């Protein structure tokens, strides 16, 4: 076995030894989306009911309490139209905010993993990173209710507040970014549940949303900054002829940092 991935010195971009950290592609987005749709409350004759959120359906041994929300990951697609070849590597330009919108820090980051690159740079070092590649994560968020009232209340909240008819933003705690998201469609999917006591109606509304994510092409590396730049001008009437030292326009000795006056008057 050979190759980059077999290099014993290579370390994974993200350490998933502790998945409860919720850091890494899909881990961070799943966690942020669940947080985003959680906390809804609906009224009932027995008092307010907090709407639970699950990935896929609740396990059989859990008591299913309606209404509840399920999240299904549908797929990931590259967003080719947003793949650019220019990436401005300037640690001071990017601004990252907290969930409440206050500025947290400036700099570069590792997508879905960390709010910074984690590189210890010296004064003479900069950073080189290949452009992050934009991807679109497809999710289905389904609202399940037993009563028409709860179904309408939650559908109304989802269409006006949770997934409004305009691009909205979901905060991701893992890397302190805000991810653009859009509602693609809302599909009614009401059905009947047959039990021993008879059939019961189940109101279901499936919301399909897309959420942005960025993937690394390679790891960021520290590079030495160029501290000096020395430019010499030479004249040559024939570019195919080797340049002689005598063609050096400026034969005056000069030291770095001192301006050099070059006479560009064409010579006969």
């Amino acid at each position, binding site marked *: 076995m050979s190759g980059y991935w077999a290099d014993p010195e290579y370390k994974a971009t993200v350490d998933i030894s502790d998945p409860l950290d919720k850091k890494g592609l899909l881990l961070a987005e799943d966690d942020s989306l669940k947080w985003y749709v959680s906390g809804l409350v609906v009224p009932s004759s027995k008092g307010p009911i907090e709407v639970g959120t699950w990935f896929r359906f609740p396990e059989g041994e859990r008591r299913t309490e309606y209404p509840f929300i399920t999240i299904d990951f549908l797929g990931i*697609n590259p967003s080719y139209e947003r793949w650019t070849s220019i990436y401005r590597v300037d640690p001071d330009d990017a601004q990252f905010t907290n969930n409440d919108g206050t500025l947290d820090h400036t700099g570069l980051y590792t997508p879905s993993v960390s709010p910074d690159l984690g590189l210890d740079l010296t004064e003479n070092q900069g950073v080189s990173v290949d452009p992050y590649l934009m991807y679109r994560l*497809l999710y289905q968020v389904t609202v399940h209710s037993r009563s028409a009232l709860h179904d309408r209340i939650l559908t109304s909240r989802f269409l006006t507040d949770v997934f409004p008819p305009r691009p909205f933003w979901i905060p991701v705690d893992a890397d302190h970014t805000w991810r653009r998201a859009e509602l693609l469609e809302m*599909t009614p999917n009401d059905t009947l549940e047959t039990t021993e006591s008879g059939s019961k109606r189940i109101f279901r509304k*499936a919301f399909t949303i897309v959420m942005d994510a960025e993937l690394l092409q390679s790891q960021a590396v520290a590079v030495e900054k160029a501290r000096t730049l020395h430019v010499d001008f030479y004249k040559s009437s024939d570019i195919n002829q080797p340049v002689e030292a005598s063609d050096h326009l400026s034969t005056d000795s000069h030291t770095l940092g001192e301006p050099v006056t070059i006479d560009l008057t064409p010579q006969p």
Partner: protein
Amino acid sequence: MAETVPVVGAGFMDALYAYAAEARDVTQAATALGLEYLQEGLRQQAAQQERWAALAPHIETFSQDGRLVVGIRGGPFASEAEQAEYGDASHPPAPLFRNSEQLQREARKRADDYIQQVMGRVVL
């Protein structure tokens, strides 16, 4: 009233109409090419998925309410397709149509390439 003098030559409008007709015909042919590619691609993908295999032959492209649609229309297959696409209590969603972005991109490219080949530039 002064006599009006035509600014545009007599043959110009005829040529313009002929060009528009050609563009229309080429666009329709390109669209049909792209739709055929999309339909066949979806059928092949469906045939490889357990929940969609029986429904694959019923996937088609059609016009509805003035809009171009790809899917399964009417009958029991439509209901079964909806359950497969969006899932239910026993099965997770198997999003065949919602995950067809790559196929749609390839179908669009086929149509664009056809127009480029015939007319020398993309009209769509």
